[in-house]
């Protein structure tokens, strides 16, 4: 199950694409080009990259309010994605959804979700659907640590385990709700420890180590495809920026600078980059080339978004019903 060299490079590329994409959003948001709420994923890239790397194009994911990383990792093209964040007609959702509702049915992305915990039952349904339709598809369900306090977590894990559904629950534990730290949300230290309450395996992984994530996800996906039921994976990670762009001082109202700095030193991309170079998987130069390609693709996506039209006002009334 060890990733091949190509796969390793692909993991890097995914993480770096997310990082550079998000960094561009910081700038675009500050300039007012990306409106609304942008919840950035910087610092958590290894989770989306590691999990989505073991999924096929046919597999499903449900995403969250902090969904850009998942969407990129699952393979949506940057141009329609960027255009969606701009609210343009060429966006994945024709500009109607924006950051919190990006979806891409062609790639099994069943939507970001503005409701914390809202994606879990939907993931259960997608997994149930592949069981009913007797396909081999697996659903990966991303959700945050604080969202796991919601009743949907309980109902969903119970149903999924009861019916042995092919779903992988991925808790992205970045230690905080918006400003509320985990210790104020729940008495448990590990969300994954709750797996026993549903008779499913629960594992904690270093969410800033893409290979650990990859490995745990590969195992869970294998189990799911074999019809053995769901797994709960908790990835310990951290968001570097505020809850959303506009959160004052990148969330320094509720987190210390030291804490933020300590996590930055555990940067998932930097760590992986170092490891790849040390293991001689690739060279600095190749990685530099990848970075440049990504930057260029993002610039093109921005250009595409900027040059695209807004939807016509009458389109407001389209798509309410089929």
């Amino acid at each position, binding site marked *: 199950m060890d990733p091949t060299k190509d796969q390793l490079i692909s993991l890097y590329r995914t993480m770096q694409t997310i990082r550079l994409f998000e960094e561009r959003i910081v700038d675009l948001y500050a300039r007012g080009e990306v409106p609304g709420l942008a919840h950035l994923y910087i610092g958590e890239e290894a989770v989306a990259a590691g999990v989505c790397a073991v999924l096929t194009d046919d597999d499903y994911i449900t995403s969250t309010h902090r969904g850009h990383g998942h969407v990129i990792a699952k393979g949506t093209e940057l141009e329609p994605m960027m255009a969606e964040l701009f609210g343009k007609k060429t966006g994945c959702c024709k500009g109607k959804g924006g950051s919190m509702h990006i979806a891409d049915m062609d790639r099994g992305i069943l939507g970001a979700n503005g409701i914390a915990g*809202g994606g879990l039952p939907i993931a259960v349904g997608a997994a149930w659907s592949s069981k009913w339709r007797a396909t081999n598809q697996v659903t990966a369900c991303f959700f945050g640590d604080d969202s796991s306090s919601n009743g949907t977590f309980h109902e969903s894990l119970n*149903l999924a385990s009861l019916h042995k559904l092919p779903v992988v629950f991925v808790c992205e534990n970045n230690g905080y709700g918006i400003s509320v730290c985990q210790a104020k949300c729940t008495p448990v230290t590990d969300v994954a420890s709750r797996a026993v309450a549903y008779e499913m395996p629960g594992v904690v992984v270093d969410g800033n180590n893409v290979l650990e994530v990859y490995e745990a996800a590969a195992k869970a996906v294998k189990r799911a495809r074999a019809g053995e039921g769901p797994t709960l994976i908790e990835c310990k990670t951290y968001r570097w920026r505020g809850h959303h762009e506009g959160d004052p001082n990148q969330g320094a109202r509720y987190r210390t600078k030291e804490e933020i700095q300590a996590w930055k030193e555990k940067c998932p991309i930097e760590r992986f980059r170092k490891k790849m170079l040390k293991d001689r998987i690739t060279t600095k130069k190749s990685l530099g080339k990848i970075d440049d390609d990504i930057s260029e693709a993002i610039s093109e996506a921005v250009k595409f978004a900027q040059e695209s039209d807004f939807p016509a006002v009458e389109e407001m009334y389209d798509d309410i019903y089929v």
Partner: protein
Amino acid sequence: MREITYCDALNEALRQCMQEDDRVVVLGEDIGCYGGIFQVTKGLLDEFGPDRIVDTPIAEAGFVGACVGAALTGMRPVAEIMFIDFTTVCMDMIVNQMAKMHYMFGGKGRVPMVLRTNIGAGRGTAAQHSQSFHSFFAHMPGLVVAAPATPYDAKGLLTEAIKNDNPVIFVEHKRLYISKGPVPEESYTIPFGKAEIKREGRDVTIVATHALVGSALEAAEQASKEGIEAEVIDPRTLSPLDKDTILNSVQKTGRLLVADEDNKTYGFAAEISAIVAEEAIYYLKAPIIRNASPDTPVPFSPPLEKAYMFGKEALMESIRRLMAYA
């Protein structure tokens, strides 16, 4: 034509749709060997097995949300929520997911699912098992809301709901389950957004829903003996709403009575009234009267619950009041 009950008509619609299309599955509490609390799913477990007739735990947000996810990915699930009162425990899945996904995703995902539930007082089940707040769903853009009043409509609307690509809140009525009427054996659909004129009349328009359609027809018969001819319109779907049929009727009769079991204030009846006040006021010969449930929770005590409910008598009184205007 053979006559069957509203309950059996619904059962037949489910059965025929399940026979025809493997993608149709039903989820709910006690819908398996128990046959559903009101027996709407009776026998389906035997015919289709536990994979397609799924008894669920009390996890409405979980299984209604699962229906949304399944619908998005190629299934056509039907969820049963035992009483409309319990839609409150899965309201997010209805209002923010089921209703909005198609729109939020720019038309790219579809949620062809049906959520069956029921309204109505009269069974002594008090404030948490007797509500009628169907107008809230009709108020939510993105949802279709069906409201069958007869066995015929029950079967045809449910078949349409299952085959339709939009998410449907299918609002049945407790007291109607045992009512009988003619129903064709073969499968058929009734289009959404087409009201039915259940009785023609020139003097007063009654827009009635659910069990009140029957009451309105009874009242109309009695009124007829007094020389008053009432037209009874059943919208059949509250959303989309067939405004034209209502407006045309009011233009003819000049008098409007709205009869619906939701609580009066901010309820279904208000919308019908407002449409007419906005678009056909010059045809009115009288104020618009609403006969709706009182603005109170449903009381348990039998005489209070009886007073809470209303039917033919209340409608007759309103008809007479309307006719008092020249």
